[in-house]
């Protein structure tokens, strides 16, 4: 293996983040409890610096590095920036919540940063091994983050469930990869693609490949949280401290999209005919079950979890149309969903306070009377999730549906919109509680708002969702140039 120092510049973002994460870890050892804010600010700084480094290295052709085990391409750059920025937002959201619960500790930030590092490695992977390393770094960090609140039974249970099921999924993915390796004799993604292209007629080999593919898809579906591999999602979302849920529910979806792109599209493009129907089943089931079960939820975190499952179904629709424009639409969907989802959980963080989790739907009754501004922000976010214009959620759905129809799967589009109408109901119900219901007698009064960073972040988040809904062209162009 030859080593070229010049190659290091291409992975500068990852190196930067690694260094800064270690720095945060060290600094945190020396800051006192009351000045922990330094760690928080350093973390935000690290993310922004890394984003700047990615931006600085953007452009140009895609490069293969380190014996073709790492790739730097436009898609990766865009996804990394999206992840870094949205994570910054997530950390801004979680500050007060963490402080109130004694969770405002260095580990939280360091784990979050390492999770992001894992995602970046995953995105940059051009070998199954790199990919797996990135995925595990991300997953392990997240398991630990869920368990952060270790004296809380619910959180520990969620962490245990997440870890066991997550490990199982990683195992499946790894097993699938080993099958692919056995059939193709290489871990390099483009070589695998090349090999499959040349072996179309070989039925025996195909059997092994499809066998491996099934496990790979299952592993991916677990990480995405697609039905029927979704069981962990509601429990983990609900059990984890809301700040951690905000993290889990947003950026890893972008990373999971990258996982799909690297494995299925870059690596196994020759087997489209095999994975397309699998994704179709996953997508349909996710949209159906996610939307239907969400109706029955009384807990906002759980409702958003099921809503997330249905969104994953939509995202998969874009991928399974298997066209370049389809991948673009899925990428657009992943990024905008992460943004909207972070906002949704951000609302819970804003409303919660010491000793009170504003996670029941009934906690939001009559919000419009008390806080018309935040009620409006929540309204925008919810309508975006429901896919009602003029919010960005509409364009995400529009782009995906357009691709599905353009490849001739009109029935799939019809099923998708039918489920999104069902989905509209539970979003409307929350809006109904916010706007139409009077405050419940004896309900916990919500936090008093002054100008706090969480509220500002939330307002920005919702306004971005609205602005992207009115002017989506720029982001769409970015996705186009990233994939095209």
């Amino acid at each position, binding site marked *: 293996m030859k080593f070229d120092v010049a190659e290091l510049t291409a992975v500068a973002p990852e190196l930067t983040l690694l260094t800064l994460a270690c720095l945060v870890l060290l600094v945190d050892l020396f800051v006192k409890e009351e000045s922990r804010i330094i760690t928080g600010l350093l973390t935000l700084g690290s993310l922004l610096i890394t984003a700047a480094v990615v931006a600085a290295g953007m452009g140009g052709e895609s490069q293969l590095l380190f014996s073709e085990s790492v790739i730097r391409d436009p898609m990766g750059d865009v996804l990394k920036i999206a992840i870094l920025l949205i994570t910054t937002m997530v950390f801004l959201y979680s500050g007060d919540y963490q402080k109130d619960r004694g969770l405002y500790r260095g580990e939280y930030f360091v784990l979050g940063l390492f999770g992001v590092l894992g995602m970046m490695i995953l995105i940059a992977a051009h070998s199954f091994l790199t990919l797996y390393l990135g995925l595990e770094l991300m997953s392990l960090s997240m398991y630990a983050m869920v368990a952060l609140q270790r004296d809380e039974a619910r959180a520990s249970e969620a962490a245990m469930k997440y870890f066991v099921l997550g490990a199982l999924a990683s195992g499946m993915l790894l097993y699938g990869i080993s099958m692919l390796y056995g059939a193709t004799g290489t871990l390099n993604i483009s070589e695998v693609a090349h090999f499959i292209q040349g072996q179309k007629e070989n039925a025996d080999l195909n059997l092994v490949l499809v066998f491996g593919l099934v496990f790979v898809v299952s592993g991916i579906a677990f990480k995405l949280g697609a039905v029927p591999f979704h069981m962990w999602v509601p429990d983990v979302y609900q059990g984890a401290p809301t700040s951690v849920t905000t993290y889990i529910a947003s950026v890893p979806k972008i990373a999971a999209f990258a996982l799909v792109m690297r494995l299925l599209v870059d690596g196994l493009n020759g087997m489209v005919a095999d994975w397309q129907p699998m994704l179709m089943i996953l997508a349909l089931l996710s949209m159906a079950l996610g939307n239907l079960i969400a109706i029955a939820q009384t807990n906002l975190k759980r409702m958003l979890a099921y809503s997330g499952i249905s969104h994953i179904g939509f995202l998969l629709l874009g991928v399974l149309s298997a066209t370049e424009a389809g991948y673009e639409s899925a990428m657009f969907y992943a990024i905008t969903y992460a943004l909207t989802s972070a906002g949704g959980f951000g609302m819970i963080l804003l409303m919660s306070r010491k000793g009170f989790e504003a996670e029941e739907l009934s906690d939001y009754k009559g919000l*419009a009377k008390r806080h*018309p501004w935040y009620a409006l922000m929540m*309204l925008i976010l919810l*309508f975006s999730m429901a896919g*009602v*214009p*003029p919010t960005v959620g*509409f*364009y995400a759905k*529009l*782009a995906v*549906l*357009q691709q599905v*129809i*353009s490849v001739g799967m*009109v029935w799939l*589009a*019809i099923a998708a*919109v*039918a489920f*999104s*109408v069902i989905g*509209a*109901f539970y979003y*409307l*119900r929350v*809006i*109904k509680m916010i*706007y*139409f*219901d009077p405050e419940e007698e004896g309900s916990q009064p919500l936090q008093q708002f002054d100008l706090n960073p969480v509220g500002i972040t939330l307002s920005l988040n919702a306004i971005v969702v609205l602005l992207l809904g009115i*002017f*989506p*062209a720029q982001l*769409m*162009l970015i996705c*186009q140039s990233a994939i095209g």
Partner: protein
Amino acid sequence: MSSDSSILSLLIWLPILGGLLTLAVGDRRGPFGRITALLFSIITLLISLSLFAEFDRTTHLMQFVELVPWIEPFNINYHLGVDGISMPFIVLTSFMTVIVVIAGWEVIQDRNAQYMAAFLIMTGLMNGVFAALDAILFYIFWEAMLIPMFIIIGVWGGPNRVYATIKFFLYTFLGSVFMLISLLWLYSESNTFSILAYHDLKIGMSAQMLIFFAFLLAFAVKVPMWPVHTWLPDAHVEAPTGGSVVLAAIMLKMGAYGFLRFTLPIVPDASSELDTFMITLSLIAVVYIGFVALVQQDMKKLIAYSSISHMGFVTLGFFIPFLIFKQSGSMEGAAIGIEGALAQMISHGFISGAMFLSVGVLYDRLHSRQIGDYGGVANTMPAFAAFMLFFSMANAGLPGTSGFVGEFMVILGAFRANFWIAFLAATTLIIGAAYTLWMYKRVVYGKVANDGVAGLSDMNHREFLMMTILAVAVLGMGLYPAPIIDVMHASVDHLLQQITISKL
């Protein structure tokens, strides 16, 4: 085509800006919120009148066109323009907004500024629906409009408002997503979202059928046609007076407008194939729903059913030309059906608005909409009784009022197609008179029914003003409808030409 005038943009964005300003002014500064709202609604009306004045009646081409690329990756343009079919509705929308603002002036106590703001924002969006020439732009206005209406019914509505508003939203949302699928399919065929380009697009018969039904679902819900009308009585009854007025006067017209802008010109062969089906549905609405209206105990519900029945006339008028064409081989004399339907739409806007306002006047005083709670109102509110009599007569289609013009033209058109269709449609003159006048008799005439009625005070200046404006409009259009029909003529003729050319 380039943008030579931005009057349409102004008509869309000025009310929205006004709404945001009203929201910003809020209720804390006394009446300034609603004064802002009134000001903006009047300016919008004046601009829309100048649109009417400058409109060129001799051409069917789109006027006041604005075309700016908007979302290039999707090929979506900010494309506006009006012809003789859409322009009158923009004026109607702007007109009704002023009425609604006046109607809500003192009546809405709770969050008055937000109420006004919601209406102004909705006005801009509704003007957008009528002006949009890009399919996605149309869809965005079409859907976005639901949000303010959802909130208006849900916040300021009656006791069962939450059920009504969620039903309203989901019904409409369900209909329109299927329209979205059709639009996306049309895009995949033509690579453009221009509605005008769709008018010339060749489409096979089976695809036309599917698109027809997808559009039908969207528009029939909105009109609403029997049997997807059930959301309307609920929404009307629970909505505040202003909400009912806008719903009846304008939102219902959007479904009908959709038929003219989308269904007929885009899928003419399917429309021609299914004309008897559509005529049957329309006649069921006219006759059956008329009888349903007869038995209502709730005034608002009665007027809501009467709206459905009147909108049946509109859809009847749209599909009559196909029948005439099949029989005579030419569109000679078919224009009267569509023009009559359009006249009916505008007239119904005035009359149903006025009827709901009349009920609103009573409701503000006694907080009941039940017919049984009233009786002898004429004794205590003579001026009001006179106005309500006039509007009731108009609702029943009395010659000399605008209600007569449209119904008469549609029936005339129906006679050219088939005697029995015309016969059934004409029964509405009897049924309509029966339910409207019977309600009027029970509410207004007779002895003073109870202490509540005895203590009623007649209309104040504000109410008098809005009633007078509407009465003038109803009477004016009834006596001299020519200016409004003239505006439509060129566009309707062009539409008739379009639908005779097969797209197969």
